[in-house]
């Protein structure tokens, strides 16, 4: 059989097997496992059959809990069933895992192992999740590389059927799930040979069937439950050998041999590391290196962790072993880590029964690699070195500096495994320039077109806009086992000039490395334009330096800002991995492969870029000494405190690894308002205000997703010291005094250049109608003035909140935003709503934020966008989980209400002491509106003064609680994935609670944060992940469900269609003393169009009738008014005029024209019937309330 090599990532390697060997796949998105589910959906959409000749069914569920339930059900009725998950998702599956195992049901869950949310969430890899299910009865099977994951997926499936024990096959999240690696593909004939169909029949024969009925899931009592639990023991004791036999059979078919515990090292090793997961590869690589130098070391890769086979362990362990370090990629607080305890226990048991056969070795345990923390050969060396010590440190950590409890081992950072055979390249790119895609492509070319082994790993930063990507590429004749980032590269490419001034890019360059830079400067002057530090590094390390103006080449080829193909061509040309013409032919071949399906036009464009690249690539001659005085630009700016300087700034600079344990907040508490210091400067163009054309409508201010454009009204006198470049005009409107002046200013260094503000601006320049009152100009041109203006602007006083009518859109925009400069995508459709809420209620707001985009741009380090005002008040924010956000927020309300009630009780008791008037005024204030709340604040401050002079327990208590006498605004925020799907049960319960909470659902109609999987909010006819052919069903009407309660305030809004309604809805929802829900149309990058037109699309959505707008306000019933008010006129345009402006809908036409037509018709009818339904509610409500 011809061997077939492909270069794919771990997720794909697993999905290819899982889809081939199952019949039903129940899925739910969670990073980093989502691609396995996405690929399965695509395979099924394409009609790919499994080895049994049928196309597997894919079912997306509402949560991982739901997915595991569906899996359990499908298994019980006899289908070969699987699922994929990670982290919190796996935790939600635990109840069903016990059931599935308890009923001896064969299945394989494939898990991309990831950290659990503790002091903070992390999407990265470790074994916290899988270690939380080691007690469920599932077999835990670890694979350590992409090839192993591919193989293990099949081995586990086979062994599970044979043993009847369900398997959890896991591999490291990101490191394995997202690493692109050259692997040998398993042929379908091997799969068929491995899986014994008799066992499949046996599984089906055990199924629940009315043709041979049995009953399962009984309830057992003290008399028999215990015995029942023990009845499975023999299955578990048989499993290790069954798995080993399966591995052996696999080896005979493929030549790739595995053991439950695989030993690597010299036979007489004395020092042993035992480890599980991707780091086993690096330890393997290091052991090879050390043993070649004569060291007596070895290692054991743990593959089967549960059930734990002491027998197989001891067979693997050399009898010469003197000391063992067991490495756990998890933390078990207050006890030893699980793998360590298991090893200790295993060896002790053997010793107790005299079966060890040699002297009990010293065993120490250590933690490493939490949340994908790097684990390098230098650290591995430190662990081996530790084992040489007479009393090695137990319960150590490696990879961090623990200056608090002193657990950490020191390691020599300069140590690397010298390996001259492997090419190592590091590439820095911008998220939107295609660098990662091009590198994936390069590694595919090298992996599939040459005899080299190849590996690619990609690192992204924490922002969704203007993010930096780093690609680590290795290839060479030797198998690549380095499961860590490249530290010293032969080739460093910087695809964006600006990075050079921000980060020490060349620290990755080895001596004599090649450095490729994309720069607008020519070869003759580019060196002089580099920061001095970079110049010095080039000279010192004797780096060869190449330059290309890739932006120019890309633009001329019609590729816009995508420089991927150009840079890829340069890489091949300089690196010499392939002969030049061959390289070009291969690149073109891969262009045809990747873009052919998108049309000849795209292929031609890319080919043109390839052809014109080499003529524009130059080697730069290096002077003997550095010249000029360009310094690195500071990454943080402003008036910040020590914490920001020592912690935040370090993380921003990419030096977070160096922060010691003592530097970290111990309970996950972080300061707010730190995005203001991170001047990211990502916009090429920024808006500039034309004071003379402006009509002062403030629309640009309300739509800005990053709060980078703001207006203020101040007295002219204050502006006496304004910089000469600072513009302002007389403030328009009755609210303002004649001497008051209006200004709009832009934070040029924080703006992302999305242009939403320009698109929404209704004013036109009378002499040049292509200009508006806000126009985009090159940031370079206005940077200096912009910074001066912004600095001055931020110091101007905010307008008195009490004098503004918060219900009026225009006036609401003079309120200070307390959510700014987040890492959300440029043009984000969610953040304008978030920012609006912060303007209206920020100074008394507590927010529960569901996991998702809003928790990422709201709380992903290094910096936080939520901030406080000058009085030190502002939103307090927290994220609990994805599924429990409504309940979490309700908890806030319960606590705050309790505090308020308690304070009122004490205040009532202490009336005489405090003063009857003050106490009475506080107790009787309704705090219905801003001025009343302001008054109450003053009274509470007065109260605090009084209380400070009273010595009593009650006074102390009241002082502690007095702030709760001012009304607090409780908000639960999240996306449709939370509100419609995973969190719906809780959300519904909160709506039914009658409590005064406010829910903001930012409805992008997909799971945006995990890359656009369909939710129940996804519109008919939209393509999304998990709905690769377009969604046939209609979206769920969450608003209607909420209205059904009758006492819930419900608003369905779209800022782009009616911003006045948006502002009213927020104010009304907050004022309503009961549950309120706002469902806000949020345009999203996952919709597939230029988001500068986001607001126009919102209007189209409303005009098409697919996004109805209304407000249902139960308060109006008390006034004898109709609670239901439709804020739209029903379908005004055909749905096609909205839908076919967006790729998500238009794509269906390209997939299946007939379906496209059908979906359009369904959507059309839906728009009509929905309008009728809402109209009916409006009419019926009117009749019920006796109004016309």
């Amino acid at each position, binding site marked *: 059989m011809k061997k077939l090599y492909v270069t794919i990532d771990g997720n794909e390697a697993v999905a290819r097997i899982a889809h081939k060997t199952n019949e039903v796949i129940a899925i739910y998105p969670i*990073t*980093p496992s989502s*691609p396995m589910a*996405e*690929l399965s959906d*695509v395979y099924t*959409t*394409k009609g790919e059959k499994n080895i049994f000749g049928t196309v597997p069914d894919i079912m997306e569920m509402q949560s991982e809990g739901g997915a595991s339930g569906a899996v359990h059900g499908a298994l019980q009725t006899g289908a070969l069933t699987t699922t994929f998950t990670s982290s919190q998702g796996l935790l939600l599956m635990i109840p069903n895992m016990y059931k599935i195992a308890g009923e001896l049901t064969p299945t394989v869950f494939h898990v991309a192992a990831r950290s659990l949310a503790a002091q903070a969430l992390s*999407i990265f890899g470790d074994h916290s999740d899988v270690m939380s299910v080691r007690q469920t009865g599932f077999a835990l099977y670890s694979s350590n590389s992409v090839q192993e994951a591919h193989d293990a997926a099949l081995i586990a499936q086979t062994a599970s059927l044979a043993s009847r024990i369900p398997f959890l096959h896991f591999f490291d999240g*990101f490191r394995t799930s*997202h690493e692109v690696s050259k692997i040998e593909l398993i042929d379908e004939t091997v799969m068929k040979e491995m899986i014994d169909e008799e066992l499949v029949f046996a599984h089906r024969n055990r199924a629940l069937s009315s043709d041979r009925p049995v009953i399962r899931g009984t309830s057992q009592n003290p008399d028999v439950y215990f015995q029942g639990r023990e009845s499975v023991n023999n299955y578990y004791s048989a499993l290790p050998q069954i798995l080993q036999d399966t591995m052996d059979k696999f080896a005979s078919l493929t030549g790739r041999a595995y053991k439950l515990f695989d030993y690597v090292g010299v036979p007489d090793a004395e020092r042993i590391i035992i480890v599980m997961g991707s780091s086993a590869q690096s330890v393997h690589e290091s052991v090879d290196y050390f043993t070649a130098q004569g060291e007596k070391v070895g290692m054991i890769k743990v593959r089967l962790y549960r059930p734990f086979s002491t027998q197989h362990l001891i067979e693997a362990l050399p009898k010469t072993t003197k000391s063992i370090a067991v490495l756990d990629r998890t933390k078990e607080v207050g006890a030893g880590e699980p793998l360590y305890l298991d090893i200790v226990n295993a060896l002790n048991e053997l010793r107790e029964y005299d079966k060890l056969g040699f002297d009990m070795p010293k065993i120490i345990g250590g933690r490493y690699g939490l949340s994908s923390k790097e684990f390098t050969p230098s650290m591995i060396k430190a662990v081996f070195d530790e084992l040489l010590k007479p009393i090695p440190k137990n319960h150590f950590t490696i990879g961090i500096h623990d200056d608090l409890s002193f657990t950490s081992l020191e390691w020599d950072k300069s140590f690397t495994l010298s390996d001259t055979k492997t090419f190592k390249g590091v590439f820095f790119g911008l*998220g*939107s320039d*295609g660098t*990662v*895609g091009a590198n994936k492509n390069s590694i595919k070319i090298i992996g599939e077109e040459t005899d080299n082994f190849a590996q690619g790993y*990609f*690192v*992204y930063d924490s*922002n*969704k806009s203007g*993010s930096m*990507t780093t690609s680590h590429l290795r290839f060479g004749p030797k198998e690549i086992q380095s499961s860590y980032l490249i530290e010293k590269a032969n080739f460093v490419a910087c695809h964006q000039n600006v990075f050079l001034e921000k980060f020490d890019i060349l620290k990755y360059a080895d001596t004599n490395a090649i450095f490729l830079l994309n720069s607008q400067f020519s070869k003759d002057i580019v060196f002089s334009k580099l920061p001095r530090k970079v110049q010095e590094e080039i000279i010192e390390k004797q780096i060869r330096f190449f330059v290309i103006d890739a932006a120019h080449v890309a633009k001329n080829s*019609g590729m*816009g800002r995508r420089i991927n193909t150009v840079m890829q061509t340069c890489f091949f040309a300089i690196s010499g991995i392939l002969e030049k013409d061959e390289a070009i032919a291969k690149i073109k071949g891969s262009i045809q492969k990747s*873009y052919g*399906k*998108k*049309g000849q*036009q*795209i292929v*031609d*464009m890319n080919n043109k870029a390839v052809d014109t690249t080499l003529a524009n690539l130059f080697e730069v001659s290096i002077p003997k000494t550095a010249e000029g005085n360009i310094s690195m630009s500071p990454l943080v700016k402003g008036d910040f405190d020590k914490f920001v300087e020592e912690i935040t700034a370090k993380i921003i600079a990419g030096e977070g690894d160096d922060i010691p344990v003592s530097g970290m907040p111990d309970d996950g508490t972080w300061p707010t308002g730190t995005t203001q210091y991170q001047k990211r400067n990502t916009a090429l163009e920024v808006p500039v205000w034309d004071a003379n054309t402006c009509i002062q409508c403030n629309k640009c201010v309300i739509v800005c997703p990053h709060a980078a454009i703001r207006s203020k009204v101040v007295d002219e006198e204050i502006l006496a010291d304004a910089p000469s470049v600072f513009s302002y005009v007389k403030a328009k409107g009755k609210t303002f005094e004649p001497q008051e002046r209006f200004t709009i200013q832009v934070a040029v260094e924080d703006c992302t250049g999305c242009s939403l503000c320009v698109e929404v601006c209704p004013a*036109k320049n009378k002499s040049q*109608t292509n200009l508006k009152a806000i126009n985009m100009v090159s940031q370079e041109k206005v940077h200096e003035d912009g910074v001066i203006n912004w600095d001055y602007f931020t110091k101007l006083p905010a307008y008195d909140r009490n004098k503004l009518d918060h219900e009026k859109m225009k006036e609401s925009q003079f309120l200070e935003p307390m959510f700014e400069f987040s890492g959300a*995508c440029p043009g984000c459709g969610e953040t304008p709503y978030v920012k609006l809420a912060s303007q209206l209620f920020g100074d008394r707001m507590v927010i529960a934020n569901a996991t998702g985009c809003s928790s*990422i741009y709201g709380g992903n380090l290094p910096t936080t966008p939520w901030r406080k005002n000058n009085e030190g008040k502002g939103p307090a924010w927290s994220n609990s989980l994805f599924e429990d956000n409504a309940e979490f927020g309700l908890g806030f309300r319960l606590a705050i209400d309790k505090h308020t009630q308690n304070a009122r009780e004490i205040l009532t008791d202490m009336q005489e002491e405090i003063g009857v008037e003050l106490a009475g005024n506080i107790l009787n204030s309704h705090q219905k509106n801003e001025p009343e709340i302001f008054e109450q604040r003053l009274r509470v401050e007065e109260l605090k003064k009084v209380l400070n002079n009273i010595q009593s327990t009650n006074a102390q208590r009241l002082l502690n609680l007095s702030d709760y006498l001012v009304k607090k605004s409780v908000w639960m925020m999240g996306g449709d994935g939370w509100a419609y799907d995973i969190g719906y049960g809780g959300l519904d319960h909160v709506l039914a609670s009658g409590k005064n909470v406010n829910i903001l659902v930012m409805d992008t109609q997909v799971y*945006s*944060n*995990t*890359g*656009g999987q369909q939710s129940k909010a996804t519109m008919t006819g939209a*393509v*999304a*992940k998990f*709905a*690769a*052919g377009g969604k046939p069903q209609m979206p769920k009407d969450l608003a209607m469900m909420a209205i059904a309660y009758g006492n819930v305030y419900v608003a369905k809004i779209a800022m782009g269609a009616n911003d006045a309604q948006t502002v009213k809805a927020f104010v009304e929802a907050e004022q309503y003393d009961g549950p309120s829900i706002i469902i806000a149309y949020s345009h999203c*990058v*996952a919709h*597939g169009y230029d988001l500068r037109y986001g607001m126009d699309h919102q209007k189209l959505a409303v005009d098409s009738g697919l996004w109805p707008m209304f407000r249902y306000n139960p308060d109006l019933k008390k006034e004898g008014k109709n609670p239901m008010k439709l804020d739209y006129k029903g379908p005004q345009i055909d749905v096609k005029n909205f839908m076919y402006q967006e*790729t*998500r809908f*238009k*794509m269906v*036409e*390209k*997939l*299946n024209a007939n379906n*496209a037509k059908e979906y359009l018709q369904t959507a059309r009818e839906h728009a009509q019937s929905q309008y009728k339904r809402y109209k009916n509610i409006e009419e019926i409500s009117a009749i019920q309330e006796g109004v016309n």
Partner: protein
Amino acid sequence: MDLTTTYMGLKLKNPIIVGASPLTASFESIKKLEANGASAVVLHSIFEEQINHETKELDHFLFKGSESYAEAIGYFPEVSLSNIESESYLEEIKNLKANISIPIIASLNGVSTGGWINYAKKLESAGVDAIELNITYIPTDIDTDARDIEALYVDALKAVKANVSIPVGVKMNAYFSAPAQMAKKLVDAGANGLVLFDRPVHVDINLENLNSIQIINKSSSKDLSETLRWSAILYKKLNTSLCASTGVSTHEDILKAIMSGADAVQMVSAILQNGESHIQTVLQNLVAWMEEKEYISIEQMKGSISLHHTSNPAAYQRANYMRILTDYRF
């Protein structure tokens, strides 16, 4: 009465072709046109920009936002798109071809010689009977020479011709300095027919939102003049078919067009205004007129008042002002 005619080698049952317009955009509408007597249809235009833009746009948005953030490596499923480059349109053509019997002419709009030309081949294999190339181009660049623009037209036509074996016609515009020579160049480059003329969309200014806008202006019989002039001039001068377009609304317009030298006419505005049944009405009137004047066929009258055969060639040849003077003098 023999109303048949031949246009670009296509046998037509009468001279009324329905031109590229919203009327020819849907299957249902084309069925109606056939039922009412249309002898052929030119399908709703497909534009170079449209083909290019569509693929580029799709590529752009499927790519946008991808590989930027660890949790969302992409935002769309990795599906292979089969219907790219308006392939659904090709499917529709196949379907249409199977269901109607009159010839179908596809209309392609473009000026460059880029990848879109391949689309002509796809149209041919989808079964269209001929292609009408619309290469009207507004030369906004003051440095571009007229000859270069003419060369663009010719090159585009040659590129299409090189790709297909079905007849290719060119819809000309009337704004060349030397329309007759341009017509010759096109015929030399292989044009099997010339459509006289294209009617560019009109521009206007919207005073409400202070913007320039395009408006579709319907033509009427009074717009027929230039078509008559140039079909009369070109008749028999070039080895190609002529089709009168712009302003053909009534049976009288058809008669004039044919007599000036056209082989067929394209009608749009009048049908948009009066409905598909207008074709029937015009055909009835045409037959009635021919019967009354004792004509037996369309062929008989073709070119009968062309520049060659008219008793007053000056009407076609001289500028307006001179003709009036002359009329006055005699």
